[in-house]
């Protein structure tokens, strides 16, 4: 029995690894053909993809609706920025520590949220997303208020330039984000395929049945929050490395953007998370490219991207709530 499950675990890990390698190759291929701007956008996709995965795990897989993942991103970002600016740590040390910080925040949030469900959880997390950024003014001397803590990915180390040549700033952003996104993908894939993922889905689909079959319900719920916070914290740290960690980097709308990406792509799959992130990041450019051929007055053109993307959002949800990647789920019971 044990031997069998070990074999299974191996095959799960192998499958996740295969998927991750494909992902890396795909991104590197795309990155090498893209121009500088799209390389930077692709880096942004990788960063937000990790954040969207945190929504996929929390909401899509375990069924807990959070509107405050942006606040967990902020925790990750601030932890990292403080370690870099005050302690002089390199990003490679600061990011893992920031993830630990976010995981602790996720634990606290999970403990207080374990009893909440549905809109109550959504409401609480939304207010958290609103309140956390105001802490930066409350603890002005450390968190530097609205001005925030400027940080960036810096320059590649010598061994890197020796091996691969001098990358542009955009390429370097992409190369920094890629390993983290790949690790996140690997872990998310492993979780989803494993027994843990099945347990989380059981929580989502039927709380009572799950608790009857011996799942320690609230402990699992808290665990989901911690794992999800780890992903969000990593995403938030990388997001801050684009230039600044400050309250205007992690507004309430960031949390809603993550949820939007997750739902657009298909909230139950990793592939959906990726597609959704690509859509959210590139949609404004696509709209701009299309609108460029029309003569619009400034009053109209200013609001056109927001109007079109919101309309697309409604249409996608109404026509196929399972999202772009979830068409095959769209069947009658």
């Amino acid at each position: 029995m044990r031997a069998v499950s070990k074999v299974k675990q191996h095959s799960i890990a192998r499958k996740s690894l295969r998927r991750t390698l494909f992902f890396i190759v795909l991104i590197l291929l795309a990155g090498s053909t893209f121009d500088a701007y799209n390389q930077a956008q692709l880096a942004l996709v990788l960063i937000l993809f990790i954040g969207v995965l945190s929504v996929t795990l929390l909401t899509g897989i375990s069924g807990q609706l959070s509107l405050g993942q942006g606040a967990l991103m902020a925790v990750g970002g601030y932890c990292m920025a403080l370690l870099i600016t005050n302690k002089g740590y390199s990003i490679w040390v600061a990011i893992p520590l920031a993830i630990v910080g976010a995981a602790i925040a996720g634990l606290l949030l999970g403990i207080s949220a374990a009893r909440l469900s549905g809109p109550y959880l959504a409401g609480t997390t939304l207010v958290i997303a609103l309140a956390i950024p105001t802490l930066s003014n409350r603890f002005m001397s450390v968190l530097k208020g609205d001005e925030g803590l400027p940080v960036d990915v810096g320059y590649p180390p010598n061994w890197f330039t020796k091996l691969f040549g001098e990358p542009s700033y955009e390429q370097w952003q992409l190369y920094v984000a890629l390993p983290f996104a790949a690790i996140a993908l690997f872990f998310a894939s492993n979780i989803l395929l494993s027994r843990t993922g099945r347990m989380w889905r059981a929580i989502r689909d039927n709380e009572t049945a799950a608790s009857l079959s011996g799942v320690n319900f609230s402990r699992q719920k808290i665990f989901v929050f911690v794992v999800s916070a780890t992903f969000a914290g990593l995403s938030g740290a990388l997001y801050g490395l684009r230039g600044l960690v400050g309250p205007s980097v992690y507004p309430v709308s960031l949390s809603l953007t993550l949820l939007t990406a997750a739902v657009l792509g298909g909230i139950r799959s990793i592939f959906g998370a990726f597609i959704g992130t690509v859509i959210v990041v590139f949609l404004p450019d696509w709209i701009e490219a299309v609108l460029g051929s029309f003569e619009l007055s400034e009053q109209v053109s200013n609001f056109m991207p927001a109007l079109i993307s919101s309309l697309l959002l409604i249409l996608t949800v109404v026509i196929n709530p399972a999202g772009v990647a979830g068409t095959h789920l769209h069947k009658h019971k």
Partner: protein
Amino acid sequence: METFLAALFSGTSRGAIYALVALGLVIVWRGAGIVNFAQMGQAMFSTYIASTMITNGYSYWLGFIVAILVGAAMGALLDILVMRPLSNKKKTELLSSDSMRAAVPVIASLGILGVLQALAGIIWAAEERGFPAPYPQEGFTVANNVMPFTSFDVFVISIVLATLLATTLFFKKTGVGLAMRATALNAEVARLSGIRTNFTRSLSWGFSGAASSLAGLLITPTSNLSPNTLDLVLIIGFTAAVVGGLDSPAGSVIGGFLVGMVISFVSFYDTPEDVFLSILSVLLLVLIIRPRGIFGAKDARRV
């Protein structure tokens, strides 16, 4: 003492409006199981219509009534055009779990909010404008002190209380009200009783739209009008609804006044910078003791 009174008065008039916003959210939640994030977007839009009418010389009251009617129509229309087609998808596997039934309409309502804000920007430009109050905004004098409490605030509180009373009576005493409550509580039994649930559900959306438009008309005289000015009001109103219990209209009123008082007393006695943190603390405190809000049903009807 003066500060105390001032905080009390200020909290009452603000709380009344949050109560109204929360009531709008509760009506839709009960009626359709949806948290409508577009609600204050609808209010913003209908308030702009009133504002346009008033600046073009129509009377305040005509604008007032038109805005409320537009709000009601907009609510019903959103249900018919977006939410009903969405809920017809309930049979799909994705929407079979409760969390998704909560999350997907949230996304749809965010989309609606985006559309309304963009349209308002296109139609009325994004400049911030003021909105008139029908009564003077000069405070009454209590014990030789002018309080932040005006004839307009009296108007606000009385119209909100009247609305709450009328809503309660409507739900309790009329057949349509009973049909709406039945639809909200158990749609299947309601349908098997011959109630046209699609209609009653749209009616809930219409009611909620009217209530939130009223809230918009009442809050903009102190907060200005621009496509985004009511975003924060929605979040605070949502908090109030959650604190009070999303299933309970009475709870939304208590929650609204409670949150209004917290905001007011923290602003007057501590510093306005702590407002959001204190709202969060109150929310967590209430929900840790009662996970479904103060007046929320103990037994989970919806998970």
